């Protein structure tokens, strides 16, 4: 079998563009899913039955459905339900953000709940408002537990962006698979795709490990 690695070089710009889209998908999704997760967590912790019930259903639903199905659903079903046609990129972002928001909501909720009730009482006893207690006492402490999980969610998200390739968002996986089917250089293109993901993802995974070590809670 003759390998022609030059095909990878030949399509380098298309692959680079895919890389940019992949990174863009990750960043934009997180930028939506962090506030989304906080809002869902606060809804869940609120005393209002409706708000906490809604949040619970949302979180359990999207944590228990394969992301690839959410992507298809966002592509075929959402435009009809919501009535707006989104670009493929925006559709992909929507699906990813629904999924990651649900995970982040659990992360934030667990982080907030991990703080002992006595800490809240100590803050209240000083005369702080509930909001001040959340800002000065609960969140800073919860942060150390939340950061490592957010970091590993980030690493998973970076990989999961590849799933939006099925609706032809021009990310790395989509572009590489497209070149493969046009040039028939299957082994070269697929290996290149894997290596590029590896080169980008490996440092992120290591960074996530570092964050976990740095924030490790010692009691």
């Amino acid at each position, binding site marked *: 079998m003759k390998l022609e690695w030059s095909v990878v070089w030949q399509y380098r710009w298309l692959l680079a563009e895919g890389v940019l889209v992949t990174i863009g998908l990750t960043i934009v999704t997180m930028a939506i899913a962090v506030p989304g997760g906080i809002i869902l967590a606060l809804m869940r912790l609120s005393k209002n039955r409706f708000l906490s019930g809604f949040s619970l259903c949302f979180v359990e639903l999207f944590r228990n459905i394969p992301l690839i199905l959410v992507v298809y659903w966002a592509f075929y079903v959402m435009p009809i339900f919501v009535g707006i046609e989104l670009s493929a990129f925006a559709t992909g972002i929507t699906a990813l953000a629904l999924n990651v928001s649900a995970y982040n909501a659990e992360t934030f909720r667990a982080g907030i709940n991990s703080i*002992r009730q*006595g*800490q809240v*009482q*100590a*803050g*209240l*006893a*000083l*005369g*702080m*408002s*509930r909001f*001040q207690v959340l800002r*000065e*006492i609960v969140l*800073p*402490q919860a942060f*150390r537990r939340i950061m490592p999980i957010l970091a590993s969610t980030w690493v998973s998200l970076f990989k999961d962006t590849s799933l939006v390739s099925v609706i032809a968002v021009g990310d790395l996986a989509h572009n590489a698979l497209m070149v493969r089917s046009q040039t028939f250089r299957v082994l070269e293109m697929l290996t290149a795709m894997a290596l590029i993901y590896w080169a980008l993802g490996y440092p992120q995974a290591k960074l996530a490990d570092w964050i976990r070590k740095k924030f490790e809670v*010692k009691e």
Partner: protein
Amino acid sequence: MSSQVGQQIRGAGKKPILSYHNVMKRFGNFTALNGVSLDIYSGEVVCFIGPSGSGKSTMLRGTNALDPFDEGQVFLDGSPLPTSENEARHLRRRMGMVFQNFELFPHRTALENVMIGPVTVLGTSKDQAAKAALKLLDKVGLADKTQNYPANLSGGQQQRVAIARALAMEPELLLFDEPTSALDPETIGEVLNVMKTLADEGRTMIVVTHEMNFAKRVADWVVVFERGQVVEQGPPEQIFDDPHTERTRNFLSHLGWHG
């Protein structure tokens, strides 16, 4: 009743700073406080004693509205305790609270723990708050530990920081909930000494404690709780040397107290 005799002598010519009238507190079906009436005067050290689960902590948490009473009335300086959360915050500024488990904020140094109240609640400038906090830490004997995080302090040291944190709000009243129960025997003394100093300064303090020696030595007034009720109250000489009720005697002998 003898306690009333004591109270007449005690309260002569003064108005109580805190006055509980028939206070009740329920958790579901369980009645944690069942009609408690009690006066506390300015400058007094009042110790709450009694068996576990008798409602002592519940009294304290009700007093600063962390967990408000269900029924009855409490007057602070003659005006009833507020019910809304907003007013409750004002109330809590006037009372300092010290917890059994210290509840220092682990993400802040000792100094910052003492500063956090004045800075966030009273809007004091950081410089000013830091100056005051240094003085307070000096007062509790921790001038050399200001930059330590709670994890790097012993239990006794943590509790002294917690006392300084409460003092930083310049409260009219200090509430202690078993401040030495979580401590090693050798560090209990250092915390009790700080509390004794505060008592000698004439501060008003309510102390829930199992340290009978401290109660006997420092308290002006001792209240014995059992099953959500006050069984007996009086000066320490009465409670410890000449208890008037059988239940007080039982409780004390249970602790191995023989006068």
